[in-house]
Structures are given as C-alpha cells and as structure tokens.
C-alpha cells in the first residue's frame, strides 16, 4: 500500500508506464521510506519535545532568544547585501569572459564550500586578527574586527558567498550573449540591457543562489565562534545561542531551534512561490 501510494501512476518524465524501474522499484520504495523517516523523525521529535517543554513559550520571549534572533536577521541581511553587490558583477564576469586567471579564480571561488568553517574562522583570525597579517594596518586605522558584529558578517560572507556566486554564474552563462547584442542594436545601452534583459532572464538562478547563501549564513557556526566569539547581543547568532542555551535552559534552546527551523522552511516556501511566479512570467 505504501508502495502504491509512493509510486502513484506516472513517471517523473510524464510517461505512463512504470516498467522502467523493474525490480529496482521495491528497493527504491524501501530507500525512500528509510530516508524520509531518517530526516523526518528528528524534526518531528524537535517539534513534539518543544511543545511539551516547560518554559518553551517563555523561552521564545526570553532576552537571549530575541537578541539572537535580531542579530541573526540583521547580520544575515547585511551579509546578503554584500554578497549580492560584490557577487553579481563578479559572477557576470566569470560567466562572460575566458582567461587563465579567471579559470583559476573560478575554481578558487568554491573553496569555502568544502573548507571546514572552523578553518575559515582561524584563517580570518590570521588575516584580520590583532596579530594577523593585516593586524598592524587595521590597528593603525583604529579598527578592531575580531569579536565584533562586523566579524559575524565577515564569517557569513566568507562561507555563504560561493553559493550565490556559483548559482549566479550559471544563471548568467545561460543567457546567450547574442540576446544582449540584439538588445543593443535596439538602442538599449549595455547597462540598461543588463537591467532589462540579463538580470530578469537569470533571475531564477540568482534567487535560488541567494536563498541557499542566506540559509548557509543563518546556520553559520564554526567560523563565527572562532572569529567573532560568542558574545550575547553582539556576536551570538542563533546557532551559537542554541549551543549556549543547551547548557542552561533546554526551553530556550528548543525555542531557538524551532524558530530557526521555521525560518528555513519559510525561506524554502518563499523561494518556491517566487520561482513559480517568475516561471509563469518568464
């Protein structure tokens, strides 16, 4: 019955017959059930436990939770602004030009995706810390980065930007430059062509990349705790606050966890709605 429910009566490619899976179908059904339980059970458990936990509602309104929520939203929004402003022209260049230097940079861009975030945090300390490479320069300018809110943003940009840049580059590469040339022959300047043609056509990719980058920034933990520390109200974002709260108040920790889960789910839902809307107009 589960198999009937899962397989339905159509193929993903729209075909009507199901025979192409053959003997693999039971294995596929079993694997799907296992996987859905594996992902679904912890999330369900989180929600159930949170609803039964004493002090959950109080935790939601607690100072620590509200400060962490506020800080997370502010830092992640600023990070995304930085990522979009810097990442968009960069991705456009990567998509449009070919040179050895750009090819090297292109592979380098995705390094933060595979780099352990803790390593990223240490690396940023080595660069921007008091005793770091740029420490003397920053010191002379009277700028302190580590253990400030700015450091949180640094950490988020570092780990999250590649997700946006990669998606944006793919999106821009999908716009045949001949479209842009035709646009120019119609009297539209290269700058206006970008706004009226390239950007709207690449929009779904950019939006997907931005959502992934934002989710990564919001969940950032390792690089932040190394480079920015864990100061309530200044550098303690939600993931850090959950870690801290686990030691004192399970209620607050669960409240934060449920909030973070809701934000992620909301982002995913918003993305799919936006994509569907641009999909029908694009």
């Amino acid at each position, binding site marked *: 019955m589960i198999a009937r429910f899962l397989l339905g009566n159509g193929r993903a490619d729209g075909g009507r017959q199901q025979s192409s899976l053959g003997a693999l179908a039971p294995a596929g059904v079993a694997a799907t059930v296992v996987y859905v339980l594996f992902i679904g059970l912890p999330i369900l458990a989180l929600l159930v436990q949170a609803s039964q936990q004493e002090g959950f509602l109080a935790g939601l309104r607690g100072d620590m939770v509200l400060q962490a929520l506020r800080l997370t939203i502010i830092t992640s929004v600023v990070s995304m602004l930085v990522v979009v402003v810097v990442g968009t022209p960069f991705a456009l260049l990567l998509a449009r030009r070919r040179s050895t230097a750009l090819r090297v940079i292109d592979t380098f861009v995705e390094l933060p995706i595979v780099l352990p975030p803790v390593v990223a945090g240490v690396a940023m300390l080595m660069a921007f810390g008091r005793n770091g490479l740029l420490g003397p320069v920053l010191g002379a300018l009277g700028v302190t980065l580590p253990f400030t809110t700015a450091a949180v943003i640094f950490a988020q940009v570092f780990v999250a930007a590649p997700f946006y840049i990669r998606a944006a580059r793919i999106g821009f590469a999908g716009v045949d430059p*001949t479209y842009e040339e035709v646009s120019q022959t*119609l009297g539209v*300047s290269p700058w206006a062509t970008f706004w009226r043609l390239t950007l709207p056509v690449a929009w779904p990719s950019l939006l997907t990349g931005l959502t992934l980058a934002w989710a990564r920034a919001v969940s950032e933990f390792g690089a932040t705790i190394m480079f920015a520390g864990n100061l309530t109200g200044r550098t303690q974002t939600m993931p850090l606050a959950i870690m801290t709260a686990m030691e004192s108040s399970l209620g607050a920790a669960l409240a934060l966890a449920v909030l973070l889960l809701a934000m992620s789910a909301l982002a995913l839902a918003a993305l799919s709605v936006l994509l569907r809307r641009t999909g029908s107009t694009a």
Partner: protein
Amino acid sequence: MSDHPGGNGASGRFAVNMGGFRLELEFEVDAGQVLVLFGPSGAGKTTALRTIAGLVRPDAGRIVIAGRTVYEDRNGAGGRPVWVEPHRRGVGYVTQQNHLFPHLTVRQNIAYGLRDRRRESARHRVAGLVEKLRLDGLEDRRVWQLSGGQQQRAALARALAPQPDLLLLDEPFAALDMELRRELGSELRATVRQFDVPVILVTHSREEALALGDEVQIIDSGVTVAQGPPLTALEQPGRGRVARLVGVENLLEMRVTARLPQDGTMVCAAAEHLLETPLADGCAVGDPVTVGIRASDIILAAGPLPQSSARNTWAGVVSAVSPRPPGYEVTLECDGVPLRCHITGTSLEAMGIVPGLPMWAIFKASSCFLLSE
C-alpha cells in the same frame, strides 16, 4: 563607394581581422532596396553584418548609415577615428534563431526598443506593426508559444519598431520550411518597400537570394568574388569559382570546335559530345572552355523532338532520381557525362521516370554559359 549614398541608404568599405581570418567588404544599399550577401558558411557574411551593426570593430575603413559616419579609421577625412556604439547606430538586427527575449511577451518584445514604450504613442506603433506582420491576437503570448514563422515576424517587428536606418537580416528564414520561407520572403519585400529602409540580407540559399535581392554580392573566404543583379550574378555567373559557389549543377570541360557568328553561337565538344553555346568574343577554335548549364534549364523528353528551336539534344539513360524539394533531381548519364536536371514531381510521375530509362535532354544554346576561372 559614394560619400552620400542615396540619401537614406548605407554604404561602407572595411576590413576586419579575426584570428587568421580576414574579411574585406565594400557595400552600398539604397533605402527600400535589399542587398543580398550570398556565400557558403564561413565566408564572412555574419561577420560583415556584425561589423556594420557595431558588434565587431573593424581594423580599417569607413561605414556610413543614413548620411552619418558610424565608423572611420584614423585615416579618414576628420583625421581622427570615429566609433559609434551599437546602441546608437540605429540598426535593426534579426538573427536566424530570432533571439526573441524569453522573459517578455510578444508585445513587450516589439516595444523593447521604443523609448516611449510606456506611452500611448508606443502602443499605436506596436499595434501598427502587429497588424502589418499579421501577429494579431498573439500580442500577449510568450515567444515560445509562437510558431517558427510567427517568431521571425515578431523579430522583424521588434527590429522595425525603433525605425532603424538600416536593417540587417542574418539568414532570417533558414530555420523555416520551404513554403513558409516563400511566404515570409514576399512579406519581407513588401515590408521593406513600405518602411523604405535599406536592407542587407545574408543567405546561403540561392532561391532566397533570387527572390529577395535587388542586388547580390557573392562572398567567399572574406572577399567579394562577384556582384550584380541576382539573375546575372547567380544564374549565369561568369567565373568557375562563382559557379561552384552558387551551385551551378552542370559544369562541362570542353573545347571550341567551330564558331558560327551568323547565329551568334559556337560549337564546343568533349569526346563524342557536341554543344552549341553563345558565341564568346575571346574564344578561338581549339580553346578550352568551361560550360555551365543550370539543372532547371534542361528539358527531359521521352524521345528526341523532331522539330524544335532548341539547339542541343543529348541522349542518355537515367542513372539516379533523388528528391530535391519541391521537385526532383534526375541524373541523365549521357555517354559518360552526367547531366543533372530538375523537374517537378508531377512530371516525374507522368513520365514514369526511373533509373535505367532512356531519355533525351534538350536545352537551348542560350542556357549554356561560359565560365572563366
């Protein structure tokens, strides 16, 4: 090239080097006229259009559109180089794949190049183009919901909307079927006349060049090898290289055996075959000549015509029949010389032409033309 081409026309003479390939072009086209750039792929036709549109920067020369110099090298009259960017040239550019913008509707595509596109005046202009190019009722469609022919008409409307001073068409009908090509071709001619815009059309189709061109320039490997009215340039080219480019189906290597000045003809021979061709001034008896005959100028008959004004009748056996839309190509083997003839499907059926059938090829002396290398 004149300095002021026909008032609203366009002209130019330029050279472009692109990684080992060099294109040299001199062109002139008047408003309301269609100049066809004809040639095989790789000849440099598209590069020519892109250079005129400003999408490729030439290395030397001058380009004038509607009396305005849009490109000039440093050796020009002004003493310093001139470069007008593509979006300031007032040139419409239609590509083979039409490149309609996928995120916009048909109406938005057509209005794309209009400065006043949010105002009433633009609405009128778009409506006018929609009507002229028979896109009524499709205005709010997405471009992928249009047929191939409708897409090309929309692309043409979009290019015409900002009232360009020059229209560049790069194989605009190549992706369409034969019938649609004819239809769009005649529409294009009417539209061009009506808008009184000079047009440069790139094609590798002889039929298209013949049907649409007022003037044809044949390009090969970056240079113009022939130019003139389509019928002359394409149907009876004077040179062997051009004949091969425009696809003259029958090219015969022969020798002059007799001159008949009273008839204005001469007789050429190759092995057993004799051919009466127009008299050529420079040819003496014994000279080698290449004779071209178009496949469509040959009549196939079941027997020799006893009384006919045609000077040439060759007997042969059908060796191959192949479809060549809209008709058929029949190869007649005449004692070792294959003659290719184009006939309609109706004729093929009526005469029961199949390989092995003995037939006669009949053609006039004036259908034969002499080629020099």
